[in-house]
């Protein structure tokens, strides 16, 4: 389509010049003008051919990062389901998946040399560590900190008190929001 339109525009401009010859080229073109025009054309083509693959490469890199973000956010949703079911092994597995994908995002943005601000936004390790503790910690003994003592395990299933379950839900939402903000930061970069 572009080629056809270009050809059509070329023919129309050619016709208009033939009908209304507004440019008198006689004696006006020097070797300098030709060299200048050639150089301008060359620089234009060179810049375009350099920038096009560069932009395509940047877009491809961002797409890879976005795919990891999507996997991490999906894994967080699955984790919510596992926490609701309470099977400890499943919770551990989902936490590992979330943690692995988030750490892959963090490594990717570092390797792709995003700015320090973006890199820092993509690092959710501290939040995940708190989430792991909230989701899987059970008391060592009766003297263990009361704040984390409100979870019990039986037959490999963990049951949380209402307050603990609410804390876990809040922490998952915070992590999800952080990942979405990080994704926006990568998109803007």
């Amino acid at each position, binding site marked *: 389509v572009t080629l056809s339109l270009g050809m059509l525009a070329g023919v129309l401009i050619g016709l208009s010049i033939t009908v209304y010859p507004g440019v008198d080229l006689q004696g006006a073109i020097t070797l300098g003008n030709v060299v200048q025009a050639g150089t301008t054309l060359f620089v234009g083509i060179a810049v375009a051919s350099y920038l096009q693959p560069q932009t395509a490469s940047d877009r491809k890199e961002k797409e890879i990062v976005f795919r990891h973000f999507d996997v991490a956010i999906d894994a967080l949703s699955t984790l919510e389901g596992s926490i609701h079911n309470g099977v400890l092994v499943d919770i551990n597995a989902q936490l590992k998946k979330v943690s692995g994908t988030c750490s892959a995002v963090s490594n990717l943005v570092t390797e792709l040399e995003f700015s320090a601000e973006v890199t820092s936004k993509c690092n959710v390790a501290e939040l995940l560590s708190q989430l792991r503790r909230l989701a899987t910690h059970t008391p*060592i003994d009766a003297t263990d900190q009361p704040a984390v003592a409100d979870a019990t395990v039986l037959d490999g299933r963990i049951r949380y008190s209402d307050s603990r379950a609410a804390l876990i839900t809040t922490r998952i939402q915070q992590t999800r929001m952080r990942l979405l903000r990080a994704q926006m930061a990568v998109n803007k970069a």
Partner: protein
Amino acid sequence: MLLKIASDFSSTPGPRRRSEGNFSGEEFRQRILVPKLKSAMDAGRELVVDLDGTSGYGTSFLEEAFGGLIRNNGYSLTELQRAVKFVSNEEPDLLKEIDEYMCEAHERLSQ
């Protein structure tokens, strides 16, 4: 001397105590970790604990297994820091976490 949890114990580590379910941290410590650690120390060798290959660890499993070495089996923090090396390529953050559990267990005993 190498101890790979996924193959020497279980690929699905479970809760803290035996009474709470299968493949607990307590069972791992008593049945696998302490005998391996003892034989490594007797032979004057380092015990390398490989954490990779499992479906994931809960904090209580790790705390009971490694903090429990200090709390229940009488090992000192410095002794363990010298004799045991942890490897986790899949979740490198676990190494810091385990170190924190051992330090916390040491502090609890000191109090």
